[in-house]
């Protein structure tokens, strides 16, 4: 095992996959040189050369379109979009083209495209650089949506995403880029669509994603001191959703809290709550509570009021316990 930052785990995954498969290339704004805005692609240009590390103009639709076209011919592009908020300037390519092409054309294409994009607040980056929009993409058939929370998961899942023959939206979290964690020295993969029970517990299930996984673990720790044992499930993949792991846990705990950083209303927590309510309502001993952001744009300097946090999870858990 070794300790590594989330951002460097991404770099390792890219580097390993590029070494393993000559058809993998990275493309995006500033991905050469210093390795993009957050240095995810650092040193790849030196290692793999200009053929496989493609610096582009600021033209997100062209970036994604090129990736799609190249993928129809067997290449395996990994496109970087600098902030998740900028996916808005290439939504047609993602949603109407990439997601639908295989279906629309009768299955003739595989589309092994990965689009990496960081979500989230915590950096005081303001309303146009802090959003969590995973719910949009989870609503679109044809895409897979991956959203890892730890260095270990980000590396294993990015490697798997690159090997997947379907388009994958790979949502990183910029507030986690500097976060450190252990990973094995040797190669490993993590399957897409498999949630991870990050902490076992008998009383309440907390399903969380991305940064909120860490807040939930913190919450679980402090609640444990009060005798409440929380099971924390890190979803890791938003689509396909690992219903089984969630359901098994809820069956055991009978209490569910969902925590994500995205705006609560119409977020992915709604789907999880609705699924449980549809298929196992009788298991529930309490309402399903959701912890998410309020219905306002992400403010520059009021993030401390805006961002869902540990305390929010603690309160929600206590509420379902007290019910």
């Amino acid at each position, binding site marked *: 095992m070794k300790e590594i930052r989330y951002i460097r785990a991404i770099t390792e995954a890219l580097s390993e996959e590029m070494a393993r498969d000559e058809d993998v290339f990275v493309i995006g704004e500033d991905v050469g040189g210093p390795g993009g805005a957050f240095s995810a692609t650092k040193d790849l240009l030196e290692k793999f050369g200009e053929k496989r590390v493609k610096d582009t103009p600021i033209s997100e639709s062209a970036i994604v379109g090129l990736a799609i076209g190249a993928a129809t011919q067997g290449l395996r592009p990994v496109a970087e979009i600098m902030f998740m908020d900028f996916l808005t300037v290439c939504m047609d390519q993602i949603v109407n083209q990439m997601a639908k092409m295989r279906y629309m054309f009768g299955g*003739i294409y595989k589309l092994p495209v990965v689009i990496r994009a960081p979500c989230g607040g915590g950096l005081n980056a303001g309303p146009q650089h802090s959003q969590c929009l995973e719910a949009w993409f989870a609503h679109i058939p044809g895409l897979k949506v991956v959203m890892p929370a730890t260095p270990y998961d980000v590396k294993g899942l990015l490697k798997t995403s690159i090997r997947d023959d379907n388009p994958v939206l790979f949502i990183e979290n910029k507030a986690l880029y500097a976060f450190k964690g252990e990973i094995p020295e040797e190669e490993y993969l993590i399957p897409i669509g498999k949630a991870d029970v990050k902490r076992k517990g008998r009383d309440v299930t907390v399903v969380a994603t991305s940064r909120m996984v860490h807040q939930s673990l913190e919450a679980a720790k402090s609640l444990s001191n009060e005798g409440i044992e929380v099971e924390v499930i890190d979803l890791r993949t938003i689509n396909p959703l690992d219903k089984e792991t969630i359901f098994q846990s809820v069956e055991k705990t009978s209490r569910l809290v969902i925590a994500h950083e995205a705006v609560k209303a119409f977020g992915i927590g709604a789907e999880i709550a609705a699924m449980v309510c549809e298929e196992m309502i009788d298991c529930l001993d309490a309402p399903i509570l959701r912890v998410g952001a309020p219905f306002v744009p992400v403010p520059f300097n009021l993030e401390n009021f805006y961002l869902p946090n540990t305390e929010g999870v603690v309160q929600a858990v206590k509420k379902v316990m007290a019910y």
Partner: protein
Amino acid sequence: MVKRETLLEMFYLMVKVRRVEERLLDIFAQGRIPGFIHVGIGQEAVAAGVCSQLEPNDYIFTTHRGHGQAIAKGIDLKRFMAEIYGRRDGYCKGKSGSMHIACKEMGVVGSNGIVGGGIPISLGTAFASVWKGEKRVTVCFFGDGAANEGTFHESLNLASLWNLPVIFCCENNGWAQFTPQKVYMKLENISARAGSYGMVGVTVDGDDVLKVYEEAKRAIERARKGQGPTLLECKTHRWFGHFAGDAQKYRPAKDIEEARGFDPIVKFQRFLIESKYINPEYIKTVEAKIKSEIDEAVSFAESSPVAGEEELFNDVYV
């Protein structure tokens, strides 16, 4: 000079595209095709002039008005027709219809229902061709209206910058749906926009298949030799409405009449006859052959079943 076989091939393709679309209008009017279709009658010279000189493994991208290019690129008429009918044996198993024909074997990468939506993707096949050291060129067809979408701009810049082997073929029929060109752009020649990207731009009489052939040849050669992309604008005329059933009430009758005066088939046929390449007898044979191909395609399509519910769930993911 263009070789005799090529001339005859182009003639055949033009007549074929015309007759197929005439039949489609007919069938559509009878309510035998679901959804909507867009025909390019009057614009056949562009598809024939460009696609007749492409290799089978070259790539094309087409639009909602893409029947002609796909046919000229050599797709199978039966599966094409079945797709438009929405039947199981169609190219997309009937799941996509007229606007979304694709045929991997013949390099028809895909038709697109989003105006300008295919342009960025065409960069990718061109990129892959260079990557693999192949000499395959990509032709991306789109309309005059599409030249005002942001994707046009982003894509042409990137293609020129990276010297990609792609021909951006703007089929300028003077209309974007119900709106004539002068209402939505100041320039007369869209090819002038090539200058914004340091790219070669040419405008050609798109109703003259020989002229299209010639300029397309240069563009294709440039692309194949690694000399970069071309913006090739073919000025042509839309005879019918935007979609089948559109009565074109917004369009002066005179304009329609004039458009029909530019008939690329009449023009080319006259040339071929005057140059003694063909005679009226030959035309009859071609027409007969085409008719039987179309008949066969239609009956193939009509006898192909609609897919069952199980097909609904196929091909979303690998």
